[in-house]
């Protein structure tokens, strides 16, 4: 097939193939994480992003490197898409000192000041008020930074969601609220939890634009996020995006997903895989070839493999790390001793 120089959504061929690579990396990285979890190298809760790759990759492609993101606990993918090195993310999963949070955070708590990844948050919806604070700070400081705040469909049911949307709209804060509606808040089907069938009425209730987006098409996600980011950057305030997606695995590694049918899962995986959909778009438009997809996949598999190797070979934190980083100035958190006279 002839490879054209056509663009899609204003993205160049190089950018589009880079997005394909990133989606593939997220997929292979998570598969590797699952494998290492099963081997006992990774502990605790681990929530995989498999199936939702188009959301993280498409939306982050619409951000500048200086923009910041806050996420839920299903954030490995966002961390990678925002530019964090797979090694530091995997090492964090392994609880190693070379992890981005020195092994003190784990799967749910990735952070990078350098890349503007301001945390995976283990408390549902807690990141929304803080993201509003980051956006407030950008406005206060006169910066044109935009904050992208990710959360699941379960977070919409928390009070923090409503408090944050109201204040963000009231003060026209530069923030994009991105609901990744993967249909289930743990085992609770969204239609059993929401009094509305989509988030448009919720957006309207807080006087901000809302959009329902196909989260299995990375270009739809990119387009919608770009519009929302432009609004935020030009001072017009927040947008609420409901991005419809599906997690191909259980809620966490220990979830056998009895609340949904195997047929439903099969249907999504076989007909709505975001990577497959994107590959078809690229091929149909003469932008990418199977050989290029395969090369991306091979590279992604290798990078994930290397990340696991790096993590495995890294040392655990020395035990004196137990008491560091409690207080910023290094002082004892409880009992204060000081030289007197």
């Amino acid at each position, binding site marked *: 097939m002839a490879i054209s120089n056509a663009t899609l959504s204003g993205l160049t061929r190089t950018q589009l193939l880079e997005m394909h690579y990133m989606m593939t990396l997220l997929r292979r990285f998570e598969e590797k994480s699952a494998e290492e979890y099963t081997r006992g190298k990774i502990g605790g809760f681990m929530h995989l992003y498999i199936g939702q790759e188009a959301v993280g990759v498409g939306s982050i492609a619409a951000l500048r490197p200086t923009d910041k993101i806050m996420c839920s606990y299903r954030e490995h993918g966002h961390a990678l898409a925002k530019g964090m090195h797979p090694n530091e993310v995997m090492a964090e999963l392994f609880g190693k000192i070379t992890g981005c*949070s020195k092994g003190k955070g784990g799967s749910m708590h990735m952070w990078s000041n350098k890349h503007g990844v301001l945390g995976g948050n283990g408390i549902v919806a807690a990141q929304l008020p803080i993201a509003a604070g980051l956006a407030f700070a950008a406005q206060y400081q006169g910066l044109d930074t935009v904050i992208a705040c990710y959360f699941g469909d379960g977070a919409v049911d928390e009070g923090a969601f409503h408090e944050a949307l109201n204040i963000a709209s009231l003060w026209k804060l530069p923030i994009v609220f991105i609901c990744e509606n993967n249909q289930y808040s743990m085992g609770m089907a969204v239609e059993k939890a929401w009094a509305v069938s989509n988030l448009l009425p919720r957006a309207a209730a807080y006087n901000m634009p809302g959009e329902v987006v196909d989260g299995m098409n990375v270009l739809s996600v990119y387009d919608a996020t770009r519009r929302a980011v432009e609004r935020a950057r030009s001072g017009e305030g927040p947008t609420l995006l409901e991005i419809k997606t599906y997690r191909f695995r259980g809620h966490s590694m220990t979830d056998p997903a009895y609340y949904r049918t195997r047929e439903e899962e099969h249907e999504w995986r076989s007909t709505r895989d975001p990577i497959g959909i994107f590959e078809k778009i690229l091929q149909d438009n003469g932008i990418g070839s199977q050989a290029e997809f395969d090369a991306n996949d091979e590279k992604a598999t290798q990078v994930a493999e290397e990340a696991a190797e790096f993590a495995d070979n890294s040392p655990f934190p020395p035990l004196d790390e137990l008491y560091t980083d409690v207080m910023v100035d290094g002082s004892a958190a409880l009992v204060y001793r000081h030289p007197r006279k």
Partner: protein
Amino acid sequence: MRTLTYRDALREALQEEMRRDERVFIIGEDIAGYGGTYAVTKGLIDEFGDKRVRDTPLAEEVIAGIGIGAALADLRPVVEIMTINFSLLAMDQIVNSAAKFHYMFGGQPRIPLVIRTVCGGGAQRGAQHSQMMESLYAHFPGLKVAIPATPYDAKGMLKSAIRDPNPVLFIEHELLYNIKGEVPDEGVEYTVPLELADIKRQGRDVTIITFSRMLHLSLQAAEDLAREGLEAEVLDLRSIRPIDIDLITDSVKKTNRVVIVEEGWKYYGTGQGLAALIYEHAFDYMDAPIQHVNGADVPMPYSKVLERAAIPSKNDIIQAVKAIVPAALAHR
């Protein structure tokens, strides 16, 4: 030195820090036009405008979140939560985010945040508006909990809190706003460290350890006891996290007897934690069991007769001292 109320001392601290550092701003419910529920922020809107003196909707969780997010971005937010009773609505943000981010993310984020709030009973506000909750927050590593009792300390400690790189819960007491005390003249710069307790009265026979409004009752009790020949040392904790264990043990080694006085409930609180620390660090110096004076173990009643009975009195403190200080010590 001049005399200033606790309220005015706090306002001066805010004003001076806002003049000193553009990054300092204050935010909360009715702090701008209304001037603050307890009038601490009165007039600040006129000098600093609504960018830096920001009224919010009644939404404690997002108010705290704005503070945390702004602090992450290197601003110096001073958040006002109208009373500590309402802080429970923001508790997830304070406990699960502010107190934990620095550790949980391997030391990368800093949260130089001050949350000012108001505690205490004694004004017939009833069960939901009269609580002491400092012990609750002092439970969590990652926070500092400051609870000053005098105008001098209030001003100096609030300035320290604003300059501190950690999240600080700064707890004022409703019945202290109108008390007066000596504060250095305007333009005379001073701060009071958050880490240090303070001996407010020297004595040899017993150490009364206290904080917030109970400091003043303890000092009155000490005056009465002095007339009977007993000299009580009164130690003001000023902060309950961190705890200034050296000053406490030094005092205990001198007096060998301790009475802990706090307005809040007895069980699982600051006093009991402190007693355990004292036994750990100074057991060999103790001549008598530690006495506790606490608020009654009930939700705060409204009726003034019942409320008075629920809050420790000067007489309760005097009785507690006499229970462990032998009369023979008097008039030595």
